[in-house]
């Protein structure tokens, strides 16, 4: 039907549901830590701007967290419904890591989220701050377990294969497998940077409306500092992660570079800036290259070389154009984001950070740029490890459940329709929250006087529809 096979549909369904899902946990990870900083600064300095900013962002956090929860439940079941071959062979390892995530993170987040969102005025400030910290820590713990699991699939370690199944031999080696330290730093920073651009974009939006808005100035300034500090660190972390990938998954790096074969007479490897890679011809068309640059980046020497894709059998190649281009999108956006940080610093030095409207407009347009880079990076690493689901050990085609094309297509359409609806409602509501004025979050009546909501996502007052 339509030329798709059930495997393609299963892969597309997983890519769709996990890409949708990952946006919200990444948003939660960054925003929870930002909220922790805001509340901490408020308690330390007593400055009401921080309190207003906390109130402003905690309502958005509630929506983001809720969407993460509902789309996350799907993921916990999808490993079994769609990838039962994987679940059966690797559940002894990945199922255990997932259960630890539920036990250490999900319950903790659910337990303290209520106090964080709705407890102001009901519990002491200190207890409220503790709840915010516990939710923030919970999001980080959650990220740790799921990245352990993903990293183990990318660079499996600490296991033995018994009757075709992966059984744990050393939990320490499983948890701290070779790619895990790099992946967690890279992903954690990506989450912080994504949220930095959201906070910066929203700050810019309010500065464009009123450049004297104190809360807008504060959030814009904090975001620009965060971006300036995080981007260089992220680029170094990304480079180190790339070297780790070269060591453990060299075929992925070859695809990222569009590197097909080593020409013995060529000195050093050029960096392919632009090309249309063709898997049929095993070559790039319309190449634009920088001599020696790839050798410099990947081996930190001028003439070092890496294996070309032709060193692997054709059925072990990933989708080269997808990996090649998603990698370039990520790196290109990374450079753009670094540029934003540098320009922000320059404007700050010139005392024009809150005046330069052109820069604020750019910041507004680049609001989603961190998330786009984050998705592009995940596409690079996930498409790049194909055709393996457990790298070098278990092929994706052997991991998939045997569903018919018709049932895969039915559920795929179901997910797409439902996710489009809830994403639409969620974004609509978040935009309304973002439009409210950040300096007016704490009413003069003081805590205890306003209405006290008790549900996630209901921390906001009022309706998301016009009251007419």
């Amino acid at each position, binding site marked *: 039907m339509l030329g798709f096979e059930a495997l393609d549909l299963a892969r597309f369904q997983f890519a769709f549901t996990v890409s949708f899902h990952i946006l919200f946990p990444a948003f939660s990870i960054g925003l929870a830590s930002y909220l922790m900083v805001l509340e901490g600064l408020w308690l330390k300095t007593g400055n009401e701007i921080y309190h207003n900013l906390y109130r402003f962002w905690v309502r958005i956090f509630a*929506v983001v967290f*809720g*969407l993460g*929860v*509902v789309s996350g*439940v*799907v993921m*916990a*079941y999808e490993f*079994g*419904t*769609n990838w*039962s071959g994987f*679940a*059966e062979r690797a*559940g*002894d*390892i990945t*199922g*255990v*890591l*997932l*259960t*630890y995530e*539920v*036990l*250490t993170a*999900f*319950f*903790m987040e*659910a*337990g*303290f989220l209520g106090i964080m969102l*709705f407890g102001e005025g009901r519990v002491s400030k200190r207890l409220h701050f503790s709840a915010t910290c516990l939710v923030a820590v919970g999001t980080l713990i959650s990220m740790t377990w799921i990245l352990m699991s993903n990293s183990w699939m990318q660079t499996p370690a600490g296991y033995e294969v018994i009757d075709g199944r992966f*059984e*744990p*031999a050393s*939990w320490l080696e499983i948890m701290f497998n070779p790619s895990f330290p790099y992946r967690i730093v890279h992903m954690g920073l990506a989450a912080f940077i994504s949220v930095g651009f959201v906070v910066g974009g929203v700050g810019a939006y309010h500065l464009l409306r009123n450049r004297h808005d104190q809360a807008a100035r504060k959030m814009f300034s904090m975001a620009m500092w965060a971006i300036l500090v995080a981007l260089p660190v992220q680029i170094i972390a990304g480079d180190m992660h790339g070297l780790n990938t070269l060591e453990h998954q060299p075929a992925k790096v070859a695809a990222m570079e569009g590197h097909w074969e080593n020409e013995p007479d060529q000195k050093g490897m050029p960096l392919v800036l632009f090309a249309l890679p063709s898997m049929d011809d095993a070559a790039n068309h319309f190449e634009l290259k920088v001599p020696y640059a790839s050798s410099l980046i990947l081996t930190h020497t001028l003439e070092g070389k890496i294996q070309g894709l032709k060193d692997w059998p054709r059925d072990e190649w990933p989708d080269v154009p997808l990996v090649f281009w998603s990698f370039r999108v990520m790196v290109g956006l990374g450079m753009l984001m670094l540029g934003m940080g540098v320009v922000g610093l320059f404007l700050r030095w010139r005392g024009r950070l809150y005046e330069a409207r052109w820069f604020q407009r750019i910041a507004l347009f680049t609001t989603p740029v961190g998330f786009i880079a984050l998705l592009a990076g995940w596409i690079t690493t996930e498409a790049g490890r194909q055709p393996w689901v457990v790298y070098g050990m278990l092929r994706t085609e052997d991991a998939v*459940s045997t*569903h*018919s094309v018709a*049932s895969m297509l039915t559920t795929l359409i*179901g*997910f797409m329709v439902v996710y489009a609806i*809830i994403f639409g*409602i*969620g974004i609509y*509501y978040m935009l309304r929250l973002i439009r409210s004025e950040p300096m007016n979050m704490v009413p003069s009546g003081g805590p205890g006087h306003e*209405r*006290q*909501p*008790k*549900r*996630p*996502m*209901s921390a*906001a007052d009022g*309706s*998301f*529809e016009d009251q007419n």
Partner: protein
Amino acid sequence: MTIDLPVIWYLLIGFAVAMYVMMDGFSLGVGILFPFIRGDENRDVMMNTVAPVWDGNQTWMILGGAGLYGAFPLAYSVILPAMYLPLILMLLALIFRGIAFEFRFKSNRSRKWFDLAFSGGAMVATFSQGVVLGGIINGLSVSERAYQGGTFDWFSPFALFTGVALMAGYALLGAGWLIMKTEGDLQNRFYQLARPLTLLLVASMIVISVWTPLSNGRIAERWFTFPNIAWFAPVPILVALLSWSIWNGVTHSHERRLFFKVLGLFFLGLSGLVISFFPLIIPPDITLWDAASARASQSFLIVGYVILVPIVLIYTAYSYYVFRGKVRAGEGYH
């Protein structure tokens, strides 16, 4: 002697499933009862009774699923694809139920859509869970450690029946919960609904209790041979006593007892299933030992479970304590 870890894990997963069924059972029951109650204000009150706790309740389902994945990966990788369509339907329905909680109170013109999302989501999710239960009881075709049956093997009169039966059960749990959490005319409506729902649930339990041993000689043998019959007789006897007590108690104002009696009924129902099937984890012939993950997996995971689940139970109790008491119209959390 060595500890039989798979048996312990069977009970621990059973505990997570029981927690889910009892806790999300009443939350979903509130949604199932929506069509019987008119008026925005009444429906606001109904939703507010579960709004602070539904998210934590649903987390038990993730623990049940993930625990199965880690401790019995074969069961996870057979049952989930076998129940593919009802499970995906359940997940999508739970999404609607979940977002309705959050957005219904923010809406004016679109409120009827969120009522539908909440109530329809709860009904479809419950029915799907019942179908999954019935489908598993009917047995799954497994060979070479994978599900070998078709897309619609779950579709049977028995599974559809358990789907409807679970809706009646959750609705009764929901009614018990709402009697505890509401007052006045609204509470009276749930008192009125309790008796017919009890009748439906008990009739369903009787039908399932007759249907399973009749269609499965092994289950009949488990229950109806000596000395088993003496050991297991308390289960049906307690079901009869509890049902009778629920039926009578409705006319008095034991407003808290009803809910806990219905929880008792659910507990007995689950015990009956365990008695019928233990040690099978995938009927008709995969046992919990066949499906268990490596000892190194189960023992590593049990450390976290026994330390963390009691802590989780403490938070949960605390959160129910904070939101204790009656919910009244107009004092919403929104």
